[in-house]
């Protein structure tokens, strides 16, 4: 009799514990969702704030950056460094930067440009390797008598955010033989693939990950998420 009561009591307490645990998990989920919501709102606020402040200041900054890049390009082309040609170059570069200063750096993302260039240079050999392997595959498809092609159009949503990384990914896909980017529509890539193998290669998402790494996307977001969750856990532990 006592044993049955004891078992019942134990069952009851376990059920209570389970329920409490479920509630705690729910609470945690809501908390995480709430923080991410507020964070996105804050980010949007910050973005509008930055972009409104940018108009006045970054117009001039863009002008200077464009001027420096274009003047370097001029020196590279001209190769004459006497006063006459350099002053010609100065005037020409000034006119062009005045006309087109809003084109070259239209939307600057958060991210260190030096790191991006460094990572882009590292990305190049990998892309070259991909192009060579895909070339061999397409040559095999073209030369084999059965011609085992399987043309297909695949669509996938990308996790990349900025237009420059979309364009880099799209051009990398097009450069790789066997796949062609047909369109990007609101973050959805429409890609034509020549065979199942190249489609599968693209489906693994390695190229996308590497492009995201090059343009410093995703990594800063995930770190921020982890920090947020850690803070919530700390609050809860203190409350308990």
């Amino acid at each position, binding site marked *: 009799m006592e044993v049955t009561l004891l078992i019942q009591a134990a069952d009851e307490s376990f059920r209570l514990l389970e329920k409490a645990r479920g509630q705690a998990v729910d609470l945690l989920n809501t908390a995480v969702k709430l923080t991410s919501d507020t964070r996105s709102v804050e980010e949007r606020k910050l973005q509008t704030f930055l972009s409104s402040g940018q108009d006045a200041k970054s117009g001039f900054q863009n002008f200077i950056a*464009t001027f420096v890049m*274009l003047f370097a*390009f*001029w020196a590279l*082309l*001209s190769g004459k460094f006497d006063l006459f*040609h350099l002053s*010609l*170059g100065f005037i*020409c*570069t000034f*006119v*062009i*930067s005045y*006309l*087109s200063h809003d*084109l*070259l750096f*239209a939307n600057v993302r958060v991210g260190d440009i030096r790191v991006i260039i460094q990572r882009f240079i590292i990305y190049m050999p990998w892309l070259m390797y991909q192009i060579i392997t895909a070339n061999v595959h397409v040559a095999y498809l073209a030369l084999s008598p059965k011609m085992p092609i399987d043309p297909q159009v695949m669509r996938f949503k990308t996790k990349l955010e900025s*237009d*420059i990384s*979309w*364009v880099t990914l*799209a*051009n990398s896909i097009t450069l790789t033989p066997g796949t062609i*980017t047909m*369109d*990007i529509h609101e973050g959805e890539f429409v890609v034509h693939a020549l065979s199942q193998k190249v489609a599968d290669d693209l489906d693994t998402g390695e190229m996308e990950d590497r492009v995201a790494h090059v343009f410093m996307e995703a990594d800063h977001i995930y770190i921020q998420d982890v920090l947020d969750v850690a803070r919530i856990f700390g609050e809860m532990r203190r409350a308990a």
Partner: protein
Amino acid sequence: MIFRKDDIIVNTISRILIPFIQLYALYVIMHGHYSPGGGFQGGVILGASMVLLLLTRGYDEAKYKFPEQIATLFSSVGVLIYAGIGLLCLFVLGNFLDYGKLAALLNVTPSHARSLGILGVEIGVGFAVMSVMYSIFLDISTGGVLPEDEEE
């Protein structure tokens, strides 16, 4: 009719390329007197970059950067620069476009004056060709009726 199509690849690539195309065009114009190229070629490249801007960014932004009135003005100014330098040579008792005679006026050696004179003429040709290319494209693509004319 010109309208903006939001193809992100073309937009981004042309956004990055247009300043370099324009600077390259000016390089071709400015170095025309001792390397391949010159006023006409450079002007065509510059006009092509304007056309690319018009195609990718739409009429409104191209109008903001380079209005059609300015294009008309520039095409006349280019011819004026060309003819003006030619007539200037007539006034200092030379032939038409006889740059060597400008040496006294510019206070430099005749060979240097020739080089500068050719440069001036090429700048004029570049101006004229660029704006004429642009207005021809604008006229063909709009059928001679600009969007702002239609609104009235």
